[in-house]
């Protein structure tokens, strides 16, 4: 069973989704337990896989028993073993949250919603696990199709946002497909490791076709991860979709695409080609700086809670792209670590937004009026996410910033360091604005009156199914922060084994 764990990671939610589609259609009550079961199985399998990767190094799982490059393989090294654990556990937490919201938001299509939910998780897990460039495309499309639908299942505005996402997402995925085609035409292979070997063996570093393929894949992935200025689809899509959808989409989709970018750069093209041969690092870091600033500043202007958070995602994507393109080991470590920490912090704040929206029915910041009194535990969970996004120790967000800034300083990219710090400060402003509304109320009393009547804001906490994932995420953020040394050790092992060569300082 243990040997099969890599395949089981995505097969379990996959089979669960199929069963949900069939059985859940008739018996709505089985959907939720099945989803939990499927995701829990996936978490179990991914942890088993992570442990065996830590013990025995890279796992290569040959599907259909065919040796690569003839067959497709799942190739799991330190990097995707970590990311896969993150993806499966974030999906599990989002699934736990979904218990009431799905019934409230999509009551007539519960089985379809859950089936799509699990298929999305399957697609994302598959993207992380696969070692084949074309298989990645298929899984990108599965994840994309499910996200279109999950967004379009929301109210009016969501449909328009979903349409925009369809167009942008298809362009992105098609660019990726085209890029793979350019790679195939020059190397004749589709297996990621094999492509890398062929690139070296055929000495293709100078080939314009390879360069164009690199541009196509990078731009395609950028569209998918909403890297500024290709972000237009994201804010509305995550803002108007059903809350459960945004709870799984927002933390995972962009992060998994960042993973794909890292995988492409390091495993397929190789660090030497990406950084030493193409000298684009300077431009792209500046683009990342722009992304960070644009995302943060746009977030400042929002009054809708989820829209504000969506713009923060754009800034966070800037962090990661910039960190990777610093062409520096610490920056790379920081970016990969940030994939992990950002997934959980985004989950945390989106869960919080979901709870607030389902509790109050309002989407703007004023919905938070006096929340510290009414929902103290929810606010505690939110604080963990907010502090992490601001970068307050010892939450995970602080350490990712720590490594990223270290990378920025090491490589002498001060503009990136400054952008990170500015964005942290803007995050502080954003979240303390929320905290102020929740703590003082929208309109605080003029003078201080000592007899606050505690009667009219009674504690009415979110239901347990929503509170548990929120608080769980909060705790995980602390754990990831405190154990960052061990996570970073895994990432460093991966980087040192992936032959960074002269590409990275």
């Amino acid at each position, binding site marked *: 069973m243990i040997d099969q764990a890599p395949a089981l990671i995505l097969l379990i939610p996959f089979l669960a989704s199929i069963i949900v589609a069939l059985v859940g259609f008739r018996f709505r009550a089985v959907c939720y337990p099945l989803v939990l079961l499927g995701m829990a199985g996936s978490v179990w399998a991914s942890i088993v896989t992570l442990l065996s990767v830590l013990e025995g190094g890279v796992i290569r799982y040959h599907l259909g028993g065919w040796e690569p490059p003839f067959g497709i393989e799942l190739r799991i090294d330190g990097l995707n073993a970590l990311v896969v654990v993150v993806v499966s556990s974030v999906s599990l937490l989002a699934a736990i949250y979904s218990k009431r919201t799905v019934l409230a938001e999509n009551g007539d299509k519960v089985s379809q919603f859950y089936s799509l939910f699990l298929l999305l998780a399957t697609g994302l897990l598959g993207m992380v696990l696969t070692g084949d460039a074309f298989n990645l495309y298929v899984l990108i*499309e599965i994840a994309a199709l499910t996200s279109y639908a999950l967004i379009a299942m929301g109210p009016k505005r969501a449909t328009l946002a*979903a349409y925009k996402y369809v167009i942008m997402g298809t362009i992105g995925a098609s660019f990726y497909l085209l890029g793979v085609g350019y790679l*195939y035409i020059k190397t004749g292979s*589709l297996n990621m490791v094999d492509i890398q070997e062929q690139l070296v063996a055929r000495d293709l570093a100078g080939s314009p076709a390879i360069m164009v393929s690199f541009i196509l894949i990078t731009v395609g992935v950028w569209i998918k991860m909403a890297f500024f200025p290709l972000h237009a689809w994201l804010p509305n899509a995550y803002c108007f979709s059903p809350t459960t959808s945004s709870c799984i989409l927002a933390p995972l989709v962009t992060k998994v695409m960042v993973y794909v970018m890292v995988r492409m750069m390091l495993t397929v093209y190789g660090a030497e080609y990406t950084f030493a041969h193409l000298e684009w690092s300077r431009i792209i870091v500046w683009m990342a700086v722009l992304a960070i600033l644009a995302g943060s500043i746009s977030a400042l202007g929002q009054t809708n809670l989820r829209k504000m958070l969506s713009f923060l995602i754009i800034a966070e994507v800037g962090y990661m792209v910039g960190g990777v393109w610093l062409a520096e080991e610490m920056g790379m470590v920081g970016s990969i670590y940030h994939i992990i920490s950002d997934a959980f912090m985004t989950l945390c704040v989106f869960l919080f937004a979901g709870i607030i929206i389902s509790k109050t029915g309002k989407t703007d910041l004023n919905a938070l009026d006096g929340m510290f009194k009414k929902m103290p535990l929810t606010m505690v969970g939110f604080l963990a996410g907010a502090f992490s996004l601001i970068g307050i120790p010892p939450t995970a967000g602080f350490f990712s910033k720590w490594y990223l800034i270290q990378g920025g300083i090491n490589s002498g990219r001060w503009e990136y360091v400054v952008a990170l710090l500015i964005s942290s400060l803007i995050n502080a402003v954003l979240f303390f604005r929320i905290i102020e509304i929740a703590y003082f109320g929208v309109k605080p009393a003029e003078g201080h009156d000592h007899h606050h009547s505690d009667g009219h804001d009674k504690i009415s906490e979110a239901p347990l199914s929503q509170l548990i994932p929120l608080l769980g995420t909060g705790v995980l953020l602390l754990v990831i922060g405190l154990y960052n040394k061990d996570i970073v050790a895994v990432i460093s092992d991966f980087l040192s084994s992936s032959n960074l060569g002269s590409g990275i300082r």
Partner: protein
Amino acid sequence: MLESLSPSFNYWIYVIIMMIGLYAMISKNNFVKKLIGMSIFQTAIILFYVSISVKEGSTIPILYHDQIHPEHGEHHEDGQGDHHQALDTLAKEHHDSHADHGDAAAGSHYPDLVIKPDDFSNPLPHVLMLTAIVVGVSTLGVGLAITQKLYGEFGSIEESEILDTIKSSND
């Protein structure tokens, strides 16, 4: 004819078609036209892939019955004739070529059959494009469904009209 203009005319064609599709996706105001653009765009990529697999003088990557069982079949005097001659001449080298692939062909049901790679076009891009077609169809379907829902909600499939509706509802 096109071949005489440029040895890589296929790429030019695919780029032109693709750009037509991309232009429609970006610039058209009508949501269905955008989806049509999307279809054109994806089809261009399929064209590109399939054109990779073409080999001069090759046929589709399916073995005919008489190729598998040459003793039973009759020799057709068409394009396949050359191929069979080549097949006969290569029969002697059969064992060497098998040695390269080791165990893979150990239990082959057609131990005497030797196939020359240049006779068949490359099957892999075909397979990939079968997938891409399916993906294209699915995306188109979902896109159309979303467009229909938009029509039901806003009463229009023109982007500018929908944006106006949203703007006026916000005021």
